[in-house]
């Protein structure tokens, strides 16, 4: 259970990116956050694992405060939270397996990871993570040799290798073409359902949000402006979130969406 209690973030430049957000996220939920660029979606996601420090309020994960965690405790919290990035954030010059093993850093400890003496069980976990996203045959390929979609699946496998309770995904499909976006989103959905991992996804495209979100949250100017089911989120709701009428840029190609939802 993730609980935001009047969480606020003010960046050094003075931008109020998060204003007094109060929110509960239940275990096993698939939550999708939508909002204009600059609305504070990335900030909301990053305060959960402490990558962005809070300036007010608190975020508690199963009752443990993120704001007041020391650096050791923060690393422990992070080890249970997988993260997936828009730009994949893989180390391109090393193998896929080494990238996935980055998910085992906390579990393996400093000395083992420093000299790459991973335990067999760490390697097994990494391999299983790769199998779950169907890319295990690339384990020893350099990450730079993969396509964008494949790289994002490696990104997901890296998060899975942490054996996380929560997965955070910051615009995971924004760098991908529509069909690949659906493959990646379905992977996330499957993982959420099969493993019961709480999954929080930032999305830009509204149609994707409606297809994959059980619960949708709308953000505007650092505040929550909508919180409801995907079914309730009609065009009027999105207009409220975006503060303007929707354009073609806000939805992914109709055809691809239709093909994917069949």
């Amino acid at each position: 259970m993730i609980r935001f209690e009047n969480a606020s973030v003010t960046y050094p430049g003075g931008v109020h990116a998060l204003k007094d957000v109060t929110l509960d996220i239940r275990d096993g939920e698939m939550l999708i956050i939508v909002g204009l660029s600059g609305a504070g979606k990335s900030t909301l996601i990053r305060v959960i694992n402490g990558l962005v420090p809070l300036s007010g309020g608190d975020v508690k994960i199963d009752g443990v405060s993120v704001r007041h965690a020391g650096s050791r405790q923060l690393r422990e919290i992070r080890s249970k939270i997988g993260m997936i990035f828009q730009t994949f954030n893989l180390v391109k010059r090393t193998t896929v397996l080494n990238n996935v093993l980055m998910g085992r850093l906390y579990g393996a400890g400093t000395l083992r990871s420093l000299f790459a003496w991973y335990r067999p069980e760490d390697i097994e976990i990494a391999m299983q993570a790769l199998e779950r996203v169907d890319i295990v045959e690339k384990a020893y390929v350099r990450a730079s040799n993969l396509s964008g979609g494949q790289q994002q699946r490696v990104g997901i496998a890296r998060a899975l290798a942490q054996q996380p309770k929560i997965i955070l995904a910051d615009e995971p499909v924004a760098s991908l073409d529509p069909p690949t976006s659906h493959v990646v989103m379905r992977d996330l959905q499957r993982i959420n359902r099969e493993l019961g991992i709480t999954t929080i996804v930032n999305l830009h495209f509204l149609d994707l949000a409606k297809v994959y979100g059980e619960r949708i949250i709308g953000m505007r100017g650092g505040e929550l402006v909508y919180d409801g089911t995907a079914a309730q989120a009609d065009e009027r709701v999105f207009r409220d979130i975006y503060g303007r009428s929707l354009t073609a840029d806000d939805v992914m190609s109709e055809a691809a969406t239709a093909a994917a939802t069949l």
Partner: protein
Amino acid sequence: MAGAAERPHPPTHAKRNLALLGAALLVGWAAVTVDVDPSEILDLPGGVALLFREMFLDPGPDWSYLPTALEGMIESLQLAWVGTVLGAILSIPLGFVGAKNVSSGGVSNVVRQLLNAIRAFPEVVLAVAIMIPIAGLGPVAGALAIGLHSIGTLGKLTAEVIEGIDPGPVEAARAAGGGSILVQRWGVLPQVLPEIVAFWLYRFEINIRAAAVLGVVGAGGIGFSLQQTISFHRYSLAGTAVIVVVLVTIAVDTVSGWVRRRIIEGAGAKRVDADAIAHPELAEVVTGPVERP
């Protein structure tokens, strides 16, 4: 649950491991056969600590030696400066002739090899083997040695900068019938002058380090004081001289680095990226296909 695909086998790095083993053997051989006693290594920290204490702490630097040290350092700066100017002036024609797009391939190759050959000799060796026999002991020999060595590096870099000139304007000028290639290249020299001047300044920074020690062989500058005070165990005096060398070198580096950045930013660096300008030695390193992030 598990996907249909087979898990791949980890690749064997036989060739890489063999190369690593070879390298390890070479290093092991060098370490074992080099003429160093293990007992010497044990004495090292104590010896260094003792010297450090005498030079900088107790009794520490003797400030009455400051005027002498400063005078020597100024001479070092001056001979570094003169050497750099000499090298810079002579490297321009050599850089032109060494550029493939100015002279013919054969000539430029010969010149490049010559420049490489010059670079192979450290300044101190040039001073000992050529300049002191010719010009006698003193700072002039040091300046000449630095100048000669600088021709090697500056000539190479100048040639590379000239080769990198945008061919557009030159082609246009040639189409309009404007003289020989050499003349046209000369015309575009101002275009690359900022980069070349930045290299000169950088070379000056390196040359100061050489100039600070040329005195050890009698080629002028503070090196003479350093050598005399250290070999006669006058460590308080040596401490003063070392402090002068370090502070003056850092000061000149800072000023020169600032000027270099101003020059390059002002000119909006044409070809060589900012990284290589900040570290022209990278231009020497990155001859192979090294990716730079």
